[in-house]
């Protein structure tokens, strides 16, 4: 089982690396997130009630990290549909290989990709803005860990959605909707208390809000910020567990439901 997951993960990573276009867009995407979004939202000036000395860039960086992880997790999901089109899947099903091995491999490959992207973003942010983390290296590490955890959990949700719908265009439309709601109805770009009422309600129930809050408090080294870590981890784990369960169950359905 472990060997199978390793072998399949290696395959998924190599598969990703074998397409230069995919690699390039994968590397450019976080940069765009970082600079486009931060420079765009910086235009609105410092929102009221910001901690002193915190720039908008500093405020948004954790959100951009988490959003990139979200986007990457969505790609993990749609990647599964491409995989279902690949002739290899029927063969894997005729081998003594657990279907969950394939899903796990994809999710780990997605995690690795998110990690690389996140590191690039952190490095670029450090280069352009300097003195990034008030929480020091430890704070940086913890926030990176939280980013990867929420990305990994959501990756399973998107895997489940893809294993259920099995159509690239439908899944992409649905994912796009989910991405928009999760991204903007959250504490990502505007503090929740400054959001319009409806968005505020959604943002309060949005798991991303908690992940972003936790990442942010650690990076900004807000007093009492460590209290946000627990809920963020718990929420991520619950989402991840539910996503895993659903994905494995839905992926088991016969492949005939995929066939063109």
């Amino acid at each position, binding site marked *: 089982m472990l060997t199978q997951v390793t072998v399949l993960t290696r395959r998924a990573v190599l598969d990703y690396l074998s397409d230069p276009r995919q690699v390039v867009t994968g590397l450019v995407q976080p940069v765009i997130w970082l600079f486009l979004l931060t420079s765009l939202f910086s235009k609105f000036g410092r929102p009221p009630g910001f901690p002193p000395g915190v720039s908008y860039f500093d405020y948004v960086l954790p959100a951009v990290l988490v959003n990139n992880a979200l986007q990457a997790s969505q790609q993990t999901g749609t990647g599964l549909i491409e995989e279902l089109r690949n002739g290899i899947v029927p063969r894997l099903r*005729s081998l003594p290989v657990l279907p969950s091995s394939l899903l796990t491999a994809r999710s780990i490959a997605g995690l690795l990709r998110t990690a690389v992207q996140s590191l690039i973003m952190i490095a670029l942010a450090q280069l352009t803005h300097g003195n990034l983390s008030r929480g020091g290296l430890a704070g940086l590490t913890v926030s990176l860990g939280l980013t990867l955890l929420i990305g990994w959990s959501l990756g399973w949700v998107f895997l489940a959605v893809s294993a259920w719908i099995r159509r690239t265009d439908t899944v992409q439309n649905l994912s796009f909707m989910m991405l928009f709601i999760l991204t903007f109805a959250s504490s990502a770009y505007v503090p929740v208390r400054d959001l319009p009422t409806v968005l505020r309600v959604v943002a309060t129930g949005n798991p991303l809000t908690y992940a972003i809050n936790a990442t942010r408090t650690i990076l900004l080294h807000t007093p009492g910020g460590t209290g946000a870590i627990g809920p963020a981890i718990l929420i991520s784990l619950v989402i991840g567990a539910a996503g895993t369960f659903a994905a494995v169950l839905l992926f088991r359905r016969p492949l005939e439901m995929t066939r063109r």
Partner: protein
Amino acid sequence: MRVRDGKGPLTGYGGRSAEIMIEADQISKDFGTVRALKSVSIAVPKGTVLALLGHNGSGKTTLVNILTTALPPSSGQARIAGFNVSKQPREVRKRIGLTGQFASVDGQLTGRSNLILIARLLGADRRAARDRADTLLELFGLQDVAPRRAATYSGGLRRRLDLAMSLVGHPEVIFLDEPTAGLDPASRIELWKLVQSLVAEGTTVLLTTQILDEADRLADSIAVLSAGVVVASGTPAELKARAGQRTVTVTLTTIEQTSAAMVVLAHAGLEPELDRKRNAIVMPIRATEKVASVVTLLDRAGIEVHELTFGHPSLDDVYLAIAAQPTGQAAHVNGGSAVPPGVRRQGGAHERASQPGGPQPAGRLQRRRPGADMARQLGAHPGNGAHPAGGA
């Protein structure tokens, strides 16, 4: 393990004590309101080939999917090498190889990596996986293309790689779901040879096909599937015998000689029918000895025979006969086997293409009805069709 009795669907093997490697017992499968399989039972003894013959949508692939654990049956039991496909899928998967209708290869990986991947997934360490991959690459003549991505392969190469991949784990049972669909004649014959060598080594094969000639060449027994029901089964010879009587076709050089021959043959009590297009005479033959008398009669009359064929009804005929009467009540005719040694083609100026490789099917196939060109429509290779009797 249960061995079927003489009433089993494979009459050729019923009652034999050979180990049954593939067994389906009253398998039914419903997709919503569509009943794809209705109480299908088959049994394939070790080291033999069963061909599942049927049109698109007859349920062939569904049955293969059930037997390879990809689909659960709605009812009924299936066992592979004694292991229940529903209850012991892992044990089943350890023992099977599957080559589906669509080549099941990873286009992004090279041919060699594809094989290594499967070997690694089956638990081989890196070194053993590489060795196994190289062995199979050599066996299948894929060394030259091994470093290329499989996506760049031609259809024939993909299929070959696909089959090689299904053999990585030394499976005892192999499922070939329309393995030669879309292959050119040379690749098809190549693949047939591979299958035959596997069977010679004791592998059990279930083959689905729409190509009658393929079933005839490879299969020890055939089950004809139509709308999810096994409508006929038996050895190729048995099925052919069921389709009707055997015929002799005599082709002559001139129209005058043809007319003369018609008179001679009719006079001798045969029932010659003239095929003006081919300048040939076709007549049913009820006993094998009569073939010799046709030759003698014509020889005495001084008529030069250009070509003479004597054939079983082809599987095309079987197919059509069964399609026409689902109960399969075709006349049963004595199935004599080979052409008597005395009967040879005389004065053959035009050589017909002989079967390119592979063992000759039992008895020459002859197409009796022009409309029965099903195999050709379905893409059978050019060698399929009438053949000169005892070709030089």
